[in-house]
């Protein structure tokens, strides 16, 4: 789980709280959910909080489910 930093039509990149970025490919048949409703990869925006279930395929991570939350609050400067 983390905050989305990049979205393409086939993958998302997520950053965790340690600022470590992980790219996960999202095949067309991956289930995307927002709240209790269905969503799609196009609904994922940079800055959204997401929880991704994924499995390894070679050296890649492939999403099996993406749960989309709201946008993360901007970090406080103080």
């Amino acid at each position, binding site marked *: *789980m983390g905050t989305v930093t990049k979205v393409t039509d086939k993958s998302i990149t997520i950053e*965790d*709280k340690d600022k470590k970025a992980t790219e996960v490919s999202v095949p067309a048949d991956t289930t995307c959910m927002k709240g*209790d409703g269905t969503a799609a990869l196009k609904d994922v925006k940079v800055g959204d*909080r997401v929880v991704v279930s994924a499995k390894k395929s070679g050296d890649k991570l492939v999403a099996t489910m993406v*749960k*989309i939350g709201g946008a993360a*609050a901007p970090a406080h400067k103080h």
Partner: protein
Amino acid sequence: MRKRNVVAISIVILLALVIYGWSLIRRGFSAHDEPSAVEAFAARTARSLAVPASYERLKNPLPPTPENIREGLEHFADHCAVCHANDGSGDTPFGRGMYPKPPDMRQATTQGKTDGEIYYTIEHGIRLSGMPAFGEKGRTDDESTWKLVHFIRHLPKLTPEELQQMERLNPKSRAELEEELEAERFLRGEGSAPSKSTKHKH
């Protein structure tokens, strides 16, 4: 002459069996492997022949109402999904590690079976596989099993909402429950993402 032919054929068959047996032993007994084509064919044929005709002809006595399918879904998520996966694909840590692997139940190998064959498999299990017998011998009126049969028929049409509902119903360890709660809090905008998942491999 005829006797000589019989002996020759017997020797050839025996030799073929010895060579096949030796190749099986040489392959080892790891559950990572897929069954060979010969094993899969022999197992499928034997399994098909082993279902009594009285079961094969059985039709689901319950109507496929949304209520019956929902009850089957709840039962499946709680008892079956750990090996078969919520979507019936068999793609779970248990399923992937079995020999033979559970079938993808959305495909014709399962969907093409009669209601009675599916019922029989659930009730009687499959010897030498990971499928236990969940029923009582001779019983053909277990409603919870017939509801499962309806749900298995529904698997190819499973919706993302149903999948999410099943995820909530899957048995979970305390660590998994905590992780799920943490994920829900995170999605609601409370707290921050942990640096790594706490999920155990086994």
